[in-house]
């Protein structure tokens, strides 16, 4: 076991290994003071933290999250708070939706041995008005079992006191009674839900245009913060702000971020906003943000993360070695910096190079070399150059690293992919993909096309992309109808209606089917892509976002976005290349096939297993065409070779 191998904390919800409290203690204390400030002043505030890549921004958030995690049952006589970690891998025009989804996921997130954060909000609110003495949680359990009517009445009083709207009140009650948890989570997170699910929840969902949905997300986030109340400050940590920028110099992302911070700052009273950026981005943020926004995002100041002192480096090394326990014996001559050489330390600490990441990476290499040479207690520290375990040159090592990283990420994104994420993935990832493969095509905005959020202008005109992946058929229908009027030759050369085969039009959605057919008649192209394509696009945006934020590193050295882009250009899967080809005007398959795909998906939603002949008859086409569609879209359907041949719906493996 090499105790130095894991150098990056990628998620503050994971337990940080080998935390050394002295490291970044000044900024950490500043964060705690910020929480105290919000709690006492009943006013939201913001702190901007910046540091070099690998200085430990996410590690710091992990320490903060760990510190705030309850070590005992919830109680109102203790200072408690809520934590949200938002990695801003999102389209700027979906920033509120992204925050909403993440906030809800984090508040539903199971915390080891503890209630979810939503439940803690519930307890705190009930504690304000409950009529009994004694411990809160047993009382709640008792009420739930023996007197649900009285509990419901208390919940009504809470809702009244907070001026909650009807939907929120009902959601709050479902939460309290543990009803429809999965759908409730989806509804609160902003996912489109089928009418049947909404009916079960007794909730409504008016999705409206893109702008309406963003506005709704903003309203929900503010409402949820209000629901938490002043006794439960919300620590909203905004990480990887750099990922909002589609390209270098892009201002839209900075503007959206500034607006987000300002609104949260001014329109809530219990939020501490902690924004984490790289130092190189901090200056850009200051220069290009509106002054009023920047003032708000730094209302408690901007703080730098320091590089390590020798004493801190020694403690970090000791803490890491302690992880390995007795699995090895240190050389007898080892000093407090072992496995580092004095020359290593001098080099690292020359001019502010000694970040935790670089220290750990160098130690990892030294440790591996020592193990490879046959570790014994008598073995003197290694004096050979670093990286003796890998003879390839740095460029090759980065290439290999990216190969492995891509493979791992795609596996993960495939397993996590679900149709509700398609819009987020496409709107954030596609502009970056187009920039890599077709840089002559640039994104443009057109306020006259509110249902076409992505427009690329290039040599052959303007191609618009409308994403119709809602599970709610009323929403899809409304959007398709609006698109009919928006799609005119004056505004768009081509319109691509992006559908997700996993969310087919239901058989009852006749108006939606007609609207889709009309759009196709108008010249719109109905396009579907496989789960693998969306997952690959998700992996692409994740890789680029982390590179932009300095969170992608190999051997302690940051891998730059340029390097990643270059690698992607050479290694992108065909599915993503086809996607771009469709946009720039070289579609691999026409919209006729796309319509067939849509029809087949709809048919299989109704009849999951059907003979090939019957399927062909239903779709009014030849059996060979159905076979071809199935061969191209295994994510939608598969064929059992007969006789008789049978087409069946591909189940989502997630």
């Amino acid at each position, binding site marked *: 076991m090499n105790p130095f191998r894991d150098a990056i904390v990628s998620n503050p919800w994971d337990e940080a290994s080998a935390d050394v409290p002295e490291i970044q203690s*000044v*900024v950490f204390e500043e964060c705690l003071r910020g929480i105290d400030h919000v709690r006492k002043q009943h006013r939201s505030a913001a702190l901007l933290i*910046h*540091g*070099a*890549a690998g200085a430990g921004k996410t590690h710091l958030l992990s320490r903060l999250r760990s510190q705030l995690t309850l070590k005992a049952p919830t109680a109102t006589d203790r200072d408690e708070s809520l934590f949200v970690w938002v990695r801003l891998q999102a389209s700027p025009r979906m920033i509120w939706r992204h925050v909403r989804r993440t906030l809800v996921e984090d508040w539903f997130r199971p915390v080891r041995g503890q209630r979810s954060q939503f439940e803690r909000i519930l307890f705190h609110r009930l504690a304000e008005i409950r009529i009994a003495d004694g411990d809160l949680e047993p009382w709640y359990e008792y009420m739930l079992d023996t007197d649900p009517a009285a509990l419901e009445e208390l919940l009504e009083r809470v809702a009244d006191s907070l001026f909650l709207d009807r939907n929120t009140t009902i959601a709050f009650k479902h939460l309290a009674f543990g009803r429809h948890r999965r759908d409730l989570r989806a509804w609160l997170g902003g996912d489109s839900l089928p009418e049947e699910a909404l009916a079960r929840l007794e909730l409504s969902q008016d999705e409206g245009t893109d702008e309406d949905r963003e506005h709704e997300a903003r309203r929900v986030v503010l409402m949820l913060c209000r629901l938490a109340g002043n006794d439960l400050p919300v620590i909203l940590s905004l990480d990887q702000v750099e990922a909002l920028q589609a390209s*270098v110099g892009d201002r839209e992302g900075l503007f959206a971020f500034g607006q987000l911070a300002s609104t949260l700052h001014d329109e809530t009273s219990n939020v501490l906003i902690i924004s984490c950026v*790289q*130092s*190189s981005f*901090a*200056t850009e943020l*200051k*220069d290009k943000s509106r002054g009023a926004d920047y003032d708000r995002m730094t209302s408690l*100041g*901007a*703080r*730098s993360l*320091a*590089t390590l002192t020798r004493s801190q480096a020694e403690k970090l090394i000791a803490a890491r070695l302690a992880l390995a326990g007795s699995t090895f014996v240190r050389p007898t001559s080892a000093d407090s910096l072992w496995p580092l050489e004095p020359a290593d330390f001098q080099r690292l600490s020359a*001019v*502010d*190079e000694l970040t935790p990441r670089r220290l750990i990476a160098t130690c990892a290499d030294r440790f591996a070399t020592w193990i490879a040479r046959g570790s014994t207690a008598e073995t003197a520290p290694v004096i050979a150059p670093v990286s003796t375990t890998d003879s390839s040159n740095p460029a090759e090592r980065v290439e290999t690293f990216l190969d492995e990283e891509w493979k791992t990420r795609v596996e993960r994104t495939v397993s996590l992919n679900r149709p509700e994420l398609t819009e987020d993935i496409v709107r954030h990832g596609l502009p970056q993909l187009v920039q890599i493969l077709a840089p002559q095509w640039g994104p443009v905005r057109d306020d006259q096309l509110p249902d076409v959020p992505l427009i690329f202008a290039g040599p052959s005109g303007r191609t618009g992309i409308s994403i119709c992946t809602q599970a709610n058929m009323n929403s899809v229908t409304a959007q398709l109808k609006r698109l009919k009027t928006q799609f005119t030759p004056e505004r768009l050369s081509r319109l691509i209606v992006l559908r997700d085969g996993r969310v087919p039009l239901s058989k009852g959605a006749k108006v939606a089917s007609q609207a889709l057919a009309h759009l196709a008649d108008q010249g719109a192209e109905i396009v579907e892509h496989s789960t693998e394509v969306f997952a690959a696009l998700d992996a692409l945006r994740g890789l680029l976002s982390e590179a932009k934020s*300095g969170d992608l590193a190999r051997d302690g050295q*940051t891998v*730059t*976005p*340029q390097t990643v882009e270059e690698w992607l250009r050479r290694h992108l899967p065909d599915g993503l290349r086809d996607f771009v080809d469709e946009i720039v005007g070289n579609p691999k398959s026409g919209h006729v096939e796309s319509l067939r795909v849509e029809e087949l998906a709809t048919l299989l939603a109704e009849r999951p297993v059907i003979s090939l002949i019957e399927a062909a008859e239903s779709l009014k086409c030849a059996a060979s065409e159905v076979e071809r569609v199935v061969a191209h879209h295994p994510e939608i359907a598969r064929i059992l070779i007969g006789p008789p041949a049978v087409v069946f719906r591909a189940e989502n493996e997630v």
Partner: protein
Amino acid sequence: MISTLGSWQICHEIVCKQTLILSLHGWREQVRQQLQQHPCLTSASLFAVVEDSENFGPFRKFESMAKSKAVTAPSQETRDYVFQQIQQTSEPVTAGQVAKLLAPPHKLSEAKVTPILDEFVAAERLQTFPPKTAKGKPRYWDRDQNEFARSLILETLDKKGSLAKTDLRKAVKQLTEELFLNAFQGLLDAQKLFEHPPLPKKKTSLFGNRPPAPEPYLNDLGVQLSKIVGQLKGASVPDEVLRRALVQLVESTGVPFGGGAVALQNVEMPSEELKVDLIALMRSIEPAADSGALVAARELRRAAKLEKMLFDQEILGLARQGRLMLHRHDFAGGLSPAERDELVTDGAGTYYVGMALRRESAQ
């Protein structure tokens, strides 16, 4: 109302009015007693106000009417204070300038300062220097003539930029020839004065208080090189091949690529000539600097108004001393040359976007 008075002007006015009345009796002690009722005045400031009125205001007029001014010689403490002020100056000063340097309770008029200075000259604690202008007054300093000459030469170069030796001589004509030549050579030997080779199409060397900036010498070459590179690109020579050839060309002149950091770090820069306190400047740019807020290299560079290389060297020096923490730009390769120029570089491909004060430094 009177007890809330705080401004100097109002206090001064009261002194004048009260003095007008009391001067009929003529006694300053009574003025002091009267005004001590006003808590806004400390005894030191009260004394200063009275002294000030005595020297420049109506008090003097009425005092002459009273014919009873008590003349007291400045105390030894005040004399020492005067000497300390002169020690802190960077050049010789006149008696009037010394008087302005004095703060209460040691405030003295020029007339009172002059005999003290003359006493110091007699005791060889101070030296006299010729006036700056024909109508100027003699100046006093605690350092010798040679040091004065060196200081004057460097100050002149700082104001006027690099000069030919003859022009520099004219600019410091108040120095004797011998004094000038001694100081000039001394500065060259101490590497505080640098000879700049003649620029292209010029014949005369210049002298400056820092090494010459290479850009003016390389301008013509840059123009020629750009033209040739353009021609080669037009002839389809790939960028990579051009880059390699250019690097080889530069390295053949003795300027290595890659080892630049070490070379740059070892350059002896005239840091003692630096007039800019970069730490103080950081605090003025970023009020939260002491709390660790980042100051952009670009902003500090603009405020410092130093030559690029000197600025970078100073910043790197402060970082090595542990006073600053530099923040590296990981993707400087993606910046335009103009953007990169605004950053601090170690000359070896590492660029720093800004700096923050270290805690110990801030304290």
